[in-house]
C-alpha cells in the first residue's frame, strides 16, 4: 500500500494514499476543538462536511474540514484543541 507522510500538531503520521485527513485524526484519537461554553473536547462527528466539528488548519489555511480533505505528502495539519 502506497503511503504519504504528514504531521499533525508537529507529530509525524503515515496514511495510505487516498485517505482523508479525517481518517488520520480519527485513528490518532485527538480531540479537535474545545466547545465554546462547556469547554468540552469534540471530535469528528458527521464525516460529510456538514457539522464542522473536524475543522483544522492545513498548510496554514484555517477552517478546513478534515473529513473532506485528502491527505498529501508533507501536509501540515494543526488542530484547534
Amino acid at each position: 500500500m502506497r503511503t504519504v507522510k504528514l504531521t499533525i500538531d508537529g507529530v509525524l503520521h503515515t496514511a495510505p494514499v487516498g485517505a482523508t485527513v479525517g481518517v488520520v485524526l480519527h485513528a490518532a484519537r485527538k480531540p479537535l476543538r474545545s466547545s465554546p461554553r462547556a469547554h468540552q473536547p469534540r471530535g469528528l462527528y458527521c464525516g460529510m462536511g456538514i457539522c464542522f466539528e473536524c475543522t483544522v488548519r492545513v498548510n496554514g489555511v484555517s477552517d478546513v474540514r478534515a473529513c473532506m480533505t485528502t491527505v498529501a505528502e508533507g501536509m501540515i495539519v494543526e488542530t484547534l484543541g
Partner: protein
Amino acid sequence: MTDRLQVDVAVIGAGPAGLSASIAAARCGASVAVLDCFPVVGGQYHMQPRADLNELVGSVQAKDGATLEREAREAGVQIFTNTELFWARPGFDLYANRAGEALACRCRELIVACGAQEVVIPFPGWTLPGVTTAGAAQRLLKAGATFEGRSVLAGTGPFLLAVAATFAKAHVRLEALVERIRPGPGHLSLLARYPERAPEALALAVAARRIARRRLYGYVVVEALGRDRLEAIRIAPVDRTGKPQLGSAMLLDGLDSLCISHGFRPNVEVTTLLGAEHGFDPKQGGWYCKADPASGMTSVLGLRAAGETTGIAGATAARVSGTLAGMAAAESIGITSAKTADRKKSLARLERARRFAKGLSTIWPLPRELIENISKETIICRCEDVTRREIEGAIEDGAPDVFALKMWTRAGMGPCQGRVCGPIIANLAARLHEVDEAAIGLNRPHLPLRPVPVQVVKASLD
C-alpha cells in the same frame, strides 16, 4: 481569478440523482455542468474509495459510481469536484467555492440533487469524541479508517445494516449492533411484496450477523460516557410504545467508537433558498422539496429537484428521478429527448421505489419518543453548547419561532448553521407550542450557505 461558466443545465450534487440527471440532459444534447463539494463524485452512496485502500474499492456501489462518472464524461458533462455552492440566485446564477477559487455559473435550468443528511437525536454524551454518525463511520471506512478498538453501531433503520456490511467488507469487527426495532413479520411481508429487494436485504442481514459479535434488537442508546472521549454506553430496552426502560439499562464498557444513525432527512438548503415550495412528511424524512415526479419541476420555473432532496426514497429512486429531471430539463430548452414509452417505464420504477421506501419507513419510523425523552441538561446545539432547558426556557419566555430561538439562545448559530440541530429544535418548539411540526417552518438558509473565504465571495460577485 473567477471561473465563469454558462451552460444550459447546471446540476448541484454528483450523487446517484445528480449524475443521472447530468447524463440524461447531456445525452439529449444540452451543455451540462455538475458541481459537487467532495473530492470524488458519487455522493455518499456511490462514493469511490481511492486506489489501493481496501476491498471497498471493488464494491458494487463504488463500481456503479465509476460507471456513472465515465458515462457523464463521455456524454460531455463538465464535472467540478471540490466545488461547494455558497449562494444561488433565481434565473439562475450559482456561486461556488472551488477549493479556494471562485466559480460563477449561469444556467437556464437548474437541477438540485443535494441528497440527504442523517437525522440526529441528541442524548447525554453524544458530543464526546468517538461518537460519530453511522454515515461518518461508513465514509471513514471507505477512506481507509481501521477503527482500532471496540466499536458499537446503534440507532435504527435499514442503513444500520448497510453500515454493518461496510464494516464487514473492511474486516472490522463490531462489538455490538444495537437496533431499536425488533425483527417482525412486517420485515418479511415487505420483502414478499418487493422480491427484487430480497437478495440485497438478505446479504446485508448476513453481513451484519457475521460482523457484529452481539446483536441487540429492541434496545436504544440512552447515554454515552467518558472523560475526554467515549469509554462506555448505556443501552436500555424499549417498551411497546418505544420508550426506553431506564430501570433495565445495561452498560457496554471499554468502547472506542459509537456510530449512531436514526435515518435520513432530505437536504433542502438550496431549494429553500430559491423559494421552492416544500412539504413536511415524517415518512419521507421531514421537510422535502415538492417536485413533479415526471419532470422534477418544483414550484419555481426552471428549478428542478431530484433524488433524496424530494423525499427519502433511496438510490434507485434517486437515479430514476435524476434521469427524468435531466431529460425534462433538456426538453424545456428545446431539445427533444427520449421516447415517452421509456419515461412511462421510468415513472413506474420510481413509484415502486418510493412505495418500498415508505414501507421501510413504516417499519423503521423516526423515533419520536427519543426526542421526547431528551433530558433537560442534554446539549442540543453542539456548536454553541445550548441545552434543551435553555431552548425551552426561551420558548416559554416567548420566542415565537426558530429564528427567534437562534437569536435568544445562539442555538443554530455556530459553524453548522443549524444543519445538525435545526429539526430537533423545531420539534421541541412544536411540542411546547402544541402545534404541528410543519407549522414551525424550516430553518432558513443564509448567505453564505457554507463558510467561505471573503475573497472568494468578492471574486465571484465582481
